[in-house]
């Protein structure tokens, strides 16, 4: 058996990660000419970690936590968001989204649950960007590496942001970081959910737990293991193939829209500048 398998593949030095990410948040916000940040806070582990990091990086007075409940949002969502806000002393605004979502779907009463879920995610995005203009801060993203790889998010919805401090951390690693940062225990203990409909859980929808899939993802993506090596190591064929397909099929979500090339210099193909150009 490879010695890599006996390692804790997802180990992080949580304080080192926090130090880097807080500097990242401050550097990216300041170089864009801002002092403040806006976060959509759901009371889940991802948005809680981002809120904690932003408060540490910029000071709580420079963080606006926006809660955006829909009518199916659970009591736990409200309670846990509130706990984060109170713990950190960040600024907050509550913007329920039921009125506009329901007004829209009154035209399409037979719409599938996924459409409602995506619409809610995109509605929250527009609220965050509007609040960012009102508050004078950039939107911090809350998509983690597991979600980004699996495509378990809504394009131009929860995947949209100006900066994303946690996009290179697997969900499993976020638990270690959250515990280190002092995220409330109730948030660490609860089952991951998008809270997009009653009873929804990530594991129920995906068909596997983050603990299982993160171990596979880190070998496949970070350590560059081949399929045959993963199968030899005991990963089920269907699991490996399903996850590999999800990564490939959702790649479009991780890229800007594809542009038909005509000229000698086309955005992002041969017109190449860093995003942090000139800052």
């Amino acid at each position: 058996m490879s010695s890599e398998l006996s390692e804790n593949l997802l180990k992080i030095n949580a304080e080192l990660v926090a130090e880097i990410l807080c500097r990242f948040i401050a550097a990216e916000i300041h170089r864009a000419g801002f002092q403040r940040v806006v976060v959509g806070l759901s009371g889940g582990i991802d948005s809680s970690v981002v809120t904690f990091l932003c408060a540490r990086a910029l000071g709580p007075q420079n963080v606006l936590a926006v809660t955006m409940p829909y009518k199916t949002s659970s009591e736990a969502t409200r309670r846990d968001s509130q706990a984060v806000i109170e713990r950190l002393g960040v600024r907050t605004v509550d913007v329920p989204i039921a009125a506009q979502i329901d007004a829209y779907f009154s035209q399409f009463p037979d719409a599938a649950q996924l459409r409602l879920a995506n619409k809610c995610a995109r509605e929250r995005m527009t609220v965050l960007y509007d609040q960012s203009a009102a508050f004078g801060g950039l939107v911090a993203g809350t998509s983690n590496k597991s979600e980004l790889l699996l495509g378990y998010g809504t394009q131009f919805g929860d995947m949209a942001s100006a900066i994303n401090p946690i996009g290179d951390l697997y969900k499993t690693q976020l638990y270690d970081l959250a515990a280190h940062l002092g995220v409330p225990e109730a948030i660490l203990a609860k089952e991951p959910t998008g809270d997009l409909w009653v009873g929804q859980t990530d594991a129920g929808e995906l068909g596997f737990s983050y603990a299982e899939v993160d171990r596979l993802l880190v070998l496949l993506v970070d350590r560059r293991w081949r399929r045959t090596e993963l199968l030899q190591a005991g990963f089920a064929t269907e699991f490996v193939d399903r996850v590999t397909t999800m990564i490939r099929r959702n790649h479009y979500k991780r890229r800007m829209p594809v542009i038909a090339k005509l000229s000698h210099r086309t955005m992002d193909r041969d017109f190449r500048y860093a995003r942090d150009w000139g800052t």
Partner: protein
Amino acid sequence: MSPAADEASALSGHPRVLRVAMAQIAPKLGDVPHNLALHVEQIEAARRQHADLVIFPELSLTGYFVRDMVPDLAISPAGPEIRQLIDAAGPMSLVVGFIEESPHHRFHNAALWAEGGQVIHVHRKVYLPTYGLFDEQRYFAAGERLMAFDTARFGRVGILICEDFWHLSAAAIIQAEEVDLLLCVANSPARGVDGPKVRVAETYEQLATALAQMLGAAVIVVNRVGFEDGLCFWGGSMAVGPDGRTIAQAAMLDPALALAEFDPGELRRQRLISPLARDERLLLTIEEFHRIKRRRYEQ
């Protein structure tokens, strides 16, 4: 070599401790005027601390992810920007990272040593990493020389730029050049966060420590800090004596002007204890490389 140069190359004969300032800065990406001002500020601070040498990181005048900005940011070592820095440095020696445009419009990731009012040496990065997050060969032409040079106070010096430092052959050539001091100027981004410090920082420390002992020379690594496109440059600039002991190390992640003091006598003592450089068999090495060349390229 002239007698004067021979005398100049004797670092161990220098009468006093030499002070080196490692300017661990966070340049603004693509803003040469801003970065020039930052350099002047650091140079003045280094002079106030009576430094003999101030070293800036790789591409210190431009930032790292320069990409399509390369032709717009390139300067000449004989141009006004470097002149301004040389003038600011006064009696102090100076190492600066910049983009050099050759007369044939090739663009190099380069670093220069200036002292006594003039540029003594320009090193053009030989190994341009083009893998993983790196894409340097797309924008830069590779340097063709790994040469050391004689300095007024630091003896014979070799400069490597970041990836050059990871190539054993570069260090071997620099050793054959009989250096007293090896500089590595870097823009090393953080990767690997599972250990007590950034993994790549640990590797740099191991390389610097091992190379100092193997070369029998002092080694100084100057790395930048700050962020570009999500990449964190980890800093941790370090000065290592010829015995492999760390003399000084700058903070991780934050800007610093870290001072290291070298006792020139240490070089002589260390070469008596461990005469590895003396015992190197250069002609054997050359013969073996010729044999390998015939086997790999001429059969």
